[in-house]
C-alpha cells in the first residue's frame, strides 16, 4: 500500500480524494494512531478556521442592470393594463369587443418590439464597453 502523503490527509478531510485512495488512507488511519492523531488535529483546526471565516459573511447590496426578460414581463403587464383601460373606457356604441382586443394586441406588439429593441441596444452597448 502506498504511504500517505501529508497533503493527502488535507484532501481526505476536504472530501477531495478519489474514492479508492480515500478508502486506502482510511484503512491506514485505522491502523496508525500517530496518523490518526495528525488527522484529528487537521480536522479540529479546519473546523475552527471555518467557524472564524463564517463570522466575516455578510449580505452585500448588489445591483444588476435589468434583463430583457424583466423588460418583457414589464411590457406584458403594461399591455394588459392598457387592455383593461380600453375595456373600461370603450364607448357604449362599441358593441363588439373585437376592436378593443385588436387595439390591445397592437399595443402589446408595439410595446414589446420597442422595449426589446431598446434592451438589445443597451446590452450591445454595455458589452462593447466591457
Amino acid at each position, binding site marked *: 500500500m502506498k504511504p500517505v502523503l*501529508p*497533503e*493527502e*490527509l*488535507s*484532501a481526505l478531510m*476536504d472530501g*477531495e480524494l478519489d474514492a479508492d485512495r480515500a478508502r486506502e488512507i482510511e484503512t491506514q488511519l485505522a491502523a496508525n494512531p500517530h496518523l490518526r492523531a495528525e488527522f484529528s488535529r*487537521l480536522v479540529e*483546526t*479546519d473546523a*475552527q*478556521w*471555518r*467557524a*472564524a*471565516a*463564517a*463570522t*466575516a*459573511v*455578510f*449580505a*452585500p*447590496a*448588489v*445591483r*444588476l*442592470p435589468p*434583463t*430583457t*426578460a424583466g423588460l418583457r414581463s414589464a411590457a406584458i403587464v403594461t399591455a394588459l393594463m392598457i387592455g383593461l383601460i380600453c375595456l373600461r373606457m370603450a364607448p357604449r356604441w362599441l358593441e363588439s369587443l373585437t376592436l378593443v382586443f385588436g387595439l390591445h394586441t397592437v399595443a402589446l406588439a408595439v410595446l414589446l418590439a420597442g422595449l426589446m429593441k431598446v434592451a438589445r441596444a443597451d446590452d450591445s452597448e*454595455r*458589452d462593447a*464597453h*466591457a
Partner: protein
Amino acid sequence: MIDRLAYGRELASLLGEAAAYARSFLGNRPDAEDAVQQAALQAWHRIEQYDTTRPFKGWWFAILRNCCFDLLRQRRTATTRGIDGIDPPDTRATEVFDWERLDAGLRNLSPAHQEILRLRYYGGLSYEALAETLGIPKGTVMSRLHLARKALAEQLRSEAR
C-alpha cells in the same frame, strides 16, 4: 453559456462568501461591497465568455479577485497605509477567534498561501474551483493548500505564545 437570469440566480447563492472573501482581502466592509458590486457587473457583461464546462464559482471568483487587486492598487495610490494596504485590526483586544484573528494570522504568510486560504475558507471554493480561479493544476492546489494550512497553524501558534 448561461443567460443573465440564470446568472442572477447563481450570483445570489455565492454573495455571502464573496463578501467575506473580499472583506478579508481588503480589510473593511465598504471596500468589500464595492469589489463585489464591481465583480457582479463585470461578470454580467462577460457572461457570454463563461464556459459552462468549468466551475462557475471559480470563474466568478477569478473576476472578484481581480476587482480586489484593482481596489487595493487604487487605495495604495491614494494613500500610504500599513503593510499590504490594510489597517490591521486590534486582535489582542478580544479572545474570540473570529475572522479578524484569522486574518491577523493570514497576513504574515506568503501571498500565495494567503490567497489560497482566503479562497478556501472565506470563498468556500472546491479544489476544482480553486484551480480555475488561480489558474493552477488541481494537484498544485492540493499541495499548496496543505502547506498553507501548516504555515497558518504555525503562525497562530507563535502568536499565541
